[in-house]
């Protein structure tokens, strides 16, 4: 480790200087290199769940999630390669196959990060069988809606609720692909005593799983508003 707290590494052949302990994703972002990510959001802790930000590091056969892997001196990182694109595409297909994601009738159609990535990686069909399991929609809140049928379990909502709003009204029940977002201890949202109805969960949700009824979805999912809230809060 460098004693000065500064490390030097190469990302896609570009010399980058980063702070010790900083993640590859953060260093790349400062260098103007875009790495796709779904669960990561600036201003929230890293979760490393979606596996879309995987990168190659010279000297290691495995792939590393850029959002949780710290930089180190002399590291040589590749953020885009045929291999990475292949795995990212497969990951998107698996995310889409897990729930009945039907863009045509989804409220987030046109304002969805999963849809944008699917388009970017050329996902025009799924090579895996879909799970057509239907989950109950929570319509009990006066304006917030939770539709687990569209959730990709990125946990942005529960992180924003916990870390920014400071409430932790949302959490996860069950395990693996049966996991579901719940409110409090699996209560109806409308009867939650902890939720402050701040809407931040809807703002950060990358898909149409949490949204505000009667608000244009382009406003709810406006990334600038979400980023503004998160960054102001951190100051």
């Amino acid at each position, binding site marked *: 480790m460098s004693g000065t707290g500064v490390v030097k590494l190469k990302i896609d052949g570009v010399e980058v200087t980063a702070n010790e302990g900083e993640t590859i994703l953060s260093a790349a972002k400062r260098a103007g290199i875009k790495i796709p990510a779904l669960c990561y959001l600036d201003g929230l802790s890293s979760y490393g769940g979606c596996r879309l930000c995987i990168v190659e590091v010279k000297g290691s056969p495995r792939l590393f999630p850029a959002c949780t892997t710290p930089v180190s001196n002399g590291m040589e990182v590749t953020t885009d390669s045929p291999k990475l694109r292949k795995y990212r595409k497969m990951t998107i297909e698996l995310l889409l196959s897990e729930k009945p994601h039907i863009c*045509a*009738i989804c*409220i987030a159609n046109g304002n969805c990060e999963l849809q944008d990535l699917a388009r970017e990686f050329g996902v025009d069909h799924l090579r895996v069988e879909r799970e057509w399991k239907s989950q109950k*929609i929570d*319509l009990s809140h*006066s304006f917030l809606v939770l539709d687990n049928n569209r959730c990709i379990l990125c946990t942005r909502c529960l992180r924003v609720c916990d870390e920014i709003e400071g409430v932790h009204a949302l959490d996860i029940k069950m395990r693996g692909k049966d996991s579901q977002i719940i409110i409090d201890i699996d209560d109806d949202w409308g009867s939650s005593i902890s939720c402050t109805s701040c809407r931040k969960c809807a703002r950060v949700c990358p898909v149409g799983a949490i949204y505000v009824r009667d608000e244009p979805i382009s406003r709810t999912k406006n990334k600038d508003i979400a980023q503004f809230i998160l960054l102001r809060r951190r100051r």
Partner: protein
Amino acid sequence: MDRERSSIIEISPVTRIEGHAKVTIHLNNDGSVREARFHVTDFRGFEKFCEGRPFYEMPSIMSRICGICPVSHLLASAKACDDILSVDIPETAILLRRLMHMGQIIQSHALSFFFLSLPDFLLGMDFDPHKRNIFYLIENHPEVMKQGIKIRAFGQKIIEYLSGKRIHSSEWIVPGGVRSPLSKDKAEKIMSEYNDILTMTLENISKFKRIMKDLSCEIESFGDFPTYYMGLVTPHGELEHYDGLLRIVDEKGQIVVNKADPKRYYEYIGEAVENWSYMKFPYYKPLGYPRGVYRVGPLARLNIVSKCGTPLADKELEEFREWGENHVVQNTLLYHYARLIEMLFCIEKVKEILDNPETYSDNIQAMASVNKHIGVGVVEAPRGTLIHHYKVNRRGLVEQANLIIATEHNNLAFNIAITQAAKRYINGGAASRDLLNRIEAVIRAFDPCLSCATHAWKPINLIVEIYDSKGNIIQRLTK
């Protein structure tokens, strides 16, 4: 199996209609026609898979039933949702929704007339089937087709100016109203084309009237039979497409149901099911099944109204009525004429709406949440009365949905019409190739939209097979 019914002729798929269907013609032992049946061969299941979804998603889900008249489904669905909210939506929202529906009817009628049916009229029923299509018409009658495309585009542009999208505008029409107001410049853009479109439509009406004179033989054998007619009318009994009251007239033109609340449609209409078609058979309840045949759509609408309500369309309506008795025109082929008159009416209405200052207000949406657990929305879609009926739970999740698509109402009438045509053109069990197109042309006149039953695409080959009583093919005809 009934061995007496010795032969069956099958026309599958029926071409130049929207969606997939086949026709079977059942013959008696002596080769005469016993009956003909119109089968819808695909199953969609929209009524089932919307269960459990929030009611306010219904307009966007339901409009995906059809890419030809998504706006009509959107409106019927949004009206059912307005009913669930129990709100009176703002006047401007009604005007804008109505304007969009005019665009929808113009584009759908233009599609049916110019793209699907005109090849039969301009080229003739017996013309080479390989050339009897829109592409041949574009090459050989470019002026007419250019007009057809322009008229259709006019309708589509109205939809686009309002919602930003030409086909699925589901984000714009919402329960309680519409999402955004109409600006004056967009209205001006619509009006800049208005005069040309009106002139073209009038020209095509005159042209079609001349064609009809040559078709008197077909008109007589193409589904000329008495039925009841159903549709919506304004409180003054004029032509109505977006809202209005239910009216049913009998085959003599007598009003049997007048200005009834369309939300109580089930008091007048029952639905029967047959095991040979995925399309249900609605019937007029007082007459019972299968006697309660009624027709909907352009012909029916012109048969039930006292007048259209716009000057040019009213003038044309008077002429139209000369084809029938007691104000009732029974000839199925005249659906095309009625469609053109409606197109004219809608074009006139577009101007009327755009001249109304109320159209430009920004008071466009009423807000409410679930206040009623049952919602019914009824509109006049291009092909007839379209009914959406939802039941929701306390939270607003859909528990049950019932749809009566415009084309379904005509189901009983289809079978009568094609039986009549088959009887006229099939003798002694032998079918000629020209027969096929005449039977299909009867179906085309109704302009059935079976896209409400399928989106699948298959190479369109028309096949007729005649079977003997043991199921062996005795004659096979292909295009």
